[in-house]
């Protein structure tokens, strides 16, 4: 369209003096143009004289002829100060390399302040071939521009918010099973910014043990339109592990079919790591607390029985009794004091196990410890004609406290010999192995066994004895358990009366 005007202008350029005249002369064309809400302008590049069409004036809220016919006036008084350079640069570039002149800038209107306009135009040469004038048009783009700016601002705000919250978005097309994700995921999680990735390939970004959870969640979302909210371990391309929270919401079509899953992807590594640490501390504390409580109970119970007896004897002493009785009671008091000392020694031993946090773990040769323990019990073993087999080849070395392992073997061996089934030579089998990354020991005998239905809970308790054996003290297994648990291990017992007993120990 402007081409035509320009052509007509060029035709008449020779005999028309003022800008206005040749526009107004072609009234029909002008009317047509002005009816499109487009204002026309012309500027003499050399003199900076200008002409503003009636519509141009109207768009700025002026009546025709009210505006000074000067480009200098226009640029200095009507164009927004911040946009002057922009307008000027566009003009300069256009003259230099004929780049398209099309600028969006703010112009001061008569009563409505600055409004956004788009101005475009073209420079034309005079008869000498020199660029002498520029002709162009303006349109009011205020509303559009404001929406655009608002959108930009919102996008910026969203991007910033996402960045601050470490959130990105993703979308899964359930038809193609392809996933795409936002710039934010690319930035914060160092994901490659490819357009779409097949879900199985995307799954590869997660730790192997998380795949099942994710697949189930996605399948549930697709099949049952069930949203999900997961915390999963994500492996960034540089192979570091990051905790991610991902929520997915199914988008359902008119037929109730899930066509897309849309979701967010939030980096929660810091908070999750803290949570896990906190949970670990809590577990540790809970565990310690339980053991402390248990210990307090043991202390109270075992000291109470002695103090009770002492009080008992003292009470009787106060009664009207004979000298002989007094001597007898004193013998008892002495005996109580000895038991009390022994109990306190035992308790001390337990306290030592519980509090020796800085226990030195070192590689221990299990076989060597076993053999040395065995030789310490040599006379008992030959006396009972026990047969002892061991195989530590699957796990020969373990990081442990040597003294504890020795004590564990000593207690278990002693027990097996002590509680052998009468009329049967003890057979003891001890093995070590690895399972799920933990070293294990099993210790099995063919002794008299114990009724776990009756005594199960108490086997590892303090001063719990179950047989008529007079040298049973009920301290061995209690210490064994404490030693094992203090190093983070566990001990389990299986037993059948008259058949034998098997201990399974997870060392660490």
């Amino acid at each position, binding site marked *: 369209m402007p081409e035509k005007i320009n052509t007509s202008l060029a035709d008449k350029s020779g005999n028309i003096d003022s800008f206005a005249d040749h526009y107004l002369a072609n009234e029909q064309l002008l009317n047509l143009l002005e009816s499109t809400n487009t204002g026309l302008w012309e500027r003499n590049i050399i003199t900076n004289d200008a002409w503003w069409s009636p519509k141009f004036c109207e768009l700025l809220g002026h009546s025709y002829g009210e505006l000074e016919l000067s480009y200098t006036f226009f640029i200095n008084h009507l164009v927004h100060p911040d946009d002057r350079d922009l307008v000027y640069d566009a003009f300069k570039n256009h003259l230099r390399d004929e780049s398209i002149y099309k600028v969006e800038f703010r112009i001061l209107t008569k009563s409505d302040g600055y409004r956004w306009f788009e101005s475009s135009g073209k420079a034309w040469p005079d008869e000498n071939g020199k660029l002498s004038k520029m002709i162009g048009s303006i349109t009011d783009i205020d509303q559009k521009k404001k929406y655009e700016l608002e959108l930009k601002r919102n996008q910026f705000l969203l991007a910033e918010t996402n960045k601050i919250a470490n959130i990105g978005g993703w979308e899964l097309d359930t038809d193609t099973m392809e996933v795409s994700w936002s710039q934010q995921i690319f930035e914060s999680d160092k994901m490659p910014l490819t357009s779409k990735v097949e879900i199985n390939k995307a799954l590869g970004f997660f730790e192997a043990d998380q795949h099942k959870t994710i697949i189930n969640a996605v399948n549930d979302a697709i099949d049952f339109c069930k949203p999900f909210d997961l915390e999963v371990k994500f492996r960034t391309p540089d192979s570091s592990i990051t905790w991610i929270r991902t929520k997915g919401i199914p988008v359902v079509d008119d037929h109730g079919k899930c066509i897309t899953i849309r979701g967010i992807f939030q980096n929660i590594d810091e908070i999750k790591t803290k949570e896990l640490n906190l949970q670990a501390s809590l577990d540790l504390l809970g565990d310690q607390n339980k053991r402390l409580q248990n210990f307090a109970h043991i202390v109270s119970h075992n000291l109470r*029985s002695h103090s009770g007896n002492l009080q008992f*004897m003292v009470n*009787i002493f106060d009664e009207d009794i004979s000298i002989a009785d007094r001597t*007898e009671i004193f013998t008892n008091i002495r005996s109580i004091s000895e038991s009390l000392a022994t109990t306190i020694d035992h308790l001390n031993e337990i306290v030592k196990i519980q509090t020796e946090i800085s226990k030195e773990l070192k590689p221990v040769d299990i076989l060597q410890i076993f053999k040395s323990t065995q030789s310490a019990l040599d006379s008992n073993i030959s006396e009972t004609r026990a047969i002892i087999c061991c195989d530590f080849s699957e796990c020969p070395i373990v990081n442990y406290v040597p003294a504890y392992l020795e004590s564990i073997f000593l207690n278990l061996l002693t027990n097996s010999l002590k509680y052998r089934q009468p009329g049967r030579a003890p057979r003891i089998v001890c093995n070590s192995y690895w399972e799920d990354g933990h070293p294990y020991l099993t210790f099995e005998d063919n002794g008299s066994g114990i009724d776990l239905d009756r005594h199960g809970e108490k086997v590892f308790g303090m001063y719990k004895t179950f047989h008529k054996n007079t040298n049973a003290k009920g301290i061995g297994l209690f210490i064994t358990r404490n030693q094992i648990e203090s190093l983070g291990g566990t001990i389990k017992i299986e037993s059948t009366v008259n058949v034998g007993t098997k201990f399974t120990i997870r060392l660490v």
Partner: protein
Amino acid sequence: MTLLENIKTVCVIDDDKIYVYGLKKLISIKQLCPNLLEFPNGKEAMDFLVNPENQSALPDIIFLDINMPVMDGWDFMDHFVKIKSQLGKKITVYMVSSSINDDDINRAKNISDVSDYIVKPVSPAKLVELFNLAA
């Protein structure tokens, strides 16, 4: 102190020798009862009770400890509930233990055949009271 005529035999089931000695001594000082049976665990006491030969020697009161090897106080009560009707005699059972654990105390109180739960040591006055209650 007068001898309670209807309490002729007392039974102590406890593996704590000193406690048994003390109880025995106190009973004789207070002249509470002429005969005393003692067993180091529930099993031996149960064997005695169910043996028909001992029909005439059955105790009137049993002082029962909780923590004992072989058969503890709870196991003893399980058996006692089953055999008591065959004994042909009312026997008062007191559970006596140094345990102040609420679980133990409540458990004992919930056994109808246990007349009372006494925390060791038993004072002379308390012992007399227990005898009078059983008489």
